[in-house]
């Protein structure tokens, strides 16, 4: 009986470790990547909505201004990100954990 118990404990620990490894190496970075991709897409969306924030006149900004009450926080964050972003590599680069 004792041996069986010990094997079960060992297996549980191993499973936990494996799950942790899988999460840390595969699942978590992947989620992060997907989220970053979503963020990038959102940035593109914002840029398409408000190009005049960067001096590009747009015929739709009058209409997309209607979205601002709902995009307020995203807008502020986006503008900061866009001004801060040094290069595309910098942004893409920090998705990888070495």
């Amino acid at each position, binding site marked *: 009986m004792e041996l069986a118990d010990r094997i079960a404990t060992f297996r549980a620990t191993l499973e936990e470790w494996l799950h942790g490894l899988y999460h840390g190496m595969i699942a978590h970075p992947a*989620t992060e990547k997907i*989220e970053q991709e*979503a963020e990038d897409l*959102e940035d593109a969306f914002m840029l398409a909505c408000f190009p005049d924030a960067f001096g590009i006149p747009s*015929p*739709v900004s009058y209409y*997309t201004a*209607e979205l*601002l009450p709902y995009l307020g*926080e995203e807008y502020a964050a986006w503008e900061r990100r866009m001004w801060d972003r040094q290069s595309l590599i910098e942004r893409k680069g920090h998705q990888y954990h070495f």
Partner: protein
Amino acid sequence: MSESTTTTRSEDATAVDDSTGTEFVFVGGKGGVGKTTVSSAYALECVEAGLETLIVSTDPAHSTADVFEQTFDDDPQPVEGYDGLSAMEIDPDQEVQEHLTDLKRQLNDQLSAGMVNEVDAQLEMAHQTPGAYEAALFDRFIEVMRNADPYDRVVFDTSPTGATLRLLALPDLLQGWIDRLMDKREHSIDLYEKAAIGNQAPRRVMDGDPILARLQARKERFEFAGEVLREQSSFYLVLNPDELSIRETQRSLAQLHDADLPVEGLVVNRLTPEPESHEEGRGATYLRQRVETERDRLERIDREFDVPVVATIETRVEEVRGSLLEEVAAELNVSVN
């Protein structure tokens, strides 16, 4: 524009869709060629044919008020002395201001004070871009189209800028744009949803996303406008028998043609009256020469444009108003049906 008004607006749209009776007529042309005179005269013709008619002026100078010697605002008002004729005047500047105020109010409802400041600059900027004026005007056009139920005929006396005509080509362009925006938004939300592992809540959810709802509402309005412009509208251009006016008309024709909105006819206004044959002297000689050149130009118009000249109107000594307007209306033999 709150959520509730959005829904009533779309209800209005279906109401109009059901009764396809209303016809829209757009009168365009270079500044100062007499668009207001022609559109007012045309509106009178429609009234005489027993049609309930609304004339909409978008010219900031608003000469409809002068023609009918009555002041109008941006609600349809019956024109005194003419049964079945109403008029309204749209002021795009005022529309832009109202749109801005409305959005600012919503901004204050939705966001914290600090955030409002961040976004405010963008809001102001969006309302000062060159397109804002046209966008506001276009919005108003759509409103008029949606509430056109009580009228059989709506005549738009457009403002002289080429922009108004270009405006009419917008629905397709804007629809495409909004489509792409919605696509991006959907895609990013989808990714956010996928990124949420386990029992984490995704950062954004597709259901009830206010941005998507808003874009969708916009898209429907543009679709509606595009449909009305293609199926229930006709376009007329007014021109004078002079070089500039002819060239401008050529450009407008090409623009409208590109937008798949073919022009029904041309109205040549301000033709010089011919003197009696026994008249001599400088005045008569001058008039004869002018009539001669104008005849040449009329022939040129006939030859070069593939759109028929539906009416020619002689120039008047006085401003066209009152009984003179009825005379002009009689000269205008555009079929109203």
